[in-house]
């Protein structure tokens, strides 16, 4: 998928985490490995929840971990992780089963991606369906399918 940010390698499935901090760190690993973000960015994603509360848990079961561009984004990137055992962020939208990590370079260049994400997230029981897939291919297929 040439035009796709969310490659198979950026999708981690059925992971275990003992805390939301650990979950964010894990979910960000592909971005760190690919050089999209620095270690500081991963820490900043965690710090922003510590500072401002779990506002990244945007809807039941789903968190969009992110921080500011200047916190250490080198290149636009997106990774995804599903949790075998859902975890609590201390949000009314707990427990979280699916985490996306966003690394945006500026406020506008990822708007198209966000529009697509909004479409995907608007589908019925999409979080449960994403949480249950067994392969990255199936995960991508679900995202593609929800495009129509």
């Amino acid at each position: 998928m040439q035009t796709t940010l969310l490659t198979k390698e950026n999708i981690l499935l059925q992971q275990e985490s003992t805390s939301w901090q650990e979950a964010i760190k894990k979910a960000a690993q592909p971005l760190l490995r690919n050089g999209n973000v620095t270690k500081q960015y991963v820490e900043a994603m965690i710090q922003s929840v510590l500072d401002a509360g779990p506002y990244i848990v945007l809807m039941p079961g789903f968190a969009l971990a992110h921080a500011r561009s200047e916190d250490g984004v080198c290149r636009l990137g997106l990774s995804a992780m599903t949790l075998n055992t859902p975890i609590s962020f201390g949000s009314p939208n707990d427990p979280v089963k699916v985490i996306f990590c966003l690394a945006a370079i500026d406020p506008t260049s990822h708007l198209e991606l966000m529009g697509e994400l909004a479409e995907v997230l608007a589908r019925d029981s999409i979080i449960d369906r994403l949480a249950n897939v067994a392969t990255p291919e199936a995960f991508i297929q679900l995202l593609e399918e929800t495009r129509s």
Partner: protein
Amino acid sequence: MGFFQKKKNDASIQSDAKPKASIGKKYLIAVACRAGMGSSTLLHIKVKSVIEENGYPIETIHGNLDVLIGFTGDAFMSMADIAAEPDFQNKPYEVIGIQNIMSKEEIQGKLETFLETMQTK
């Protein structure tokens, strides 16, 4: 540069910061969060589609919390936990918190309450 190939005619992701000419009164809502990158970006997309579908007399701007510096519009909208912070109490503008940013019903309900409040002001 998204998940997928470029799409045509996706008007929903364009900024509508410049007010359109209108006869009636239009209200201005700033949709913002700390980074202005993720949470509020998605919320803004959703809010704009609800406004459009219902024909609410509302314009929106979007950004990080800096958009509130010198803000003279009618309301600030964000995720519920940010809206509930002490910083946003007793403001000259309304403060609207959204719990489930993908819930059109919640956004619609809160925008209608906002419009009612503005009419009685």
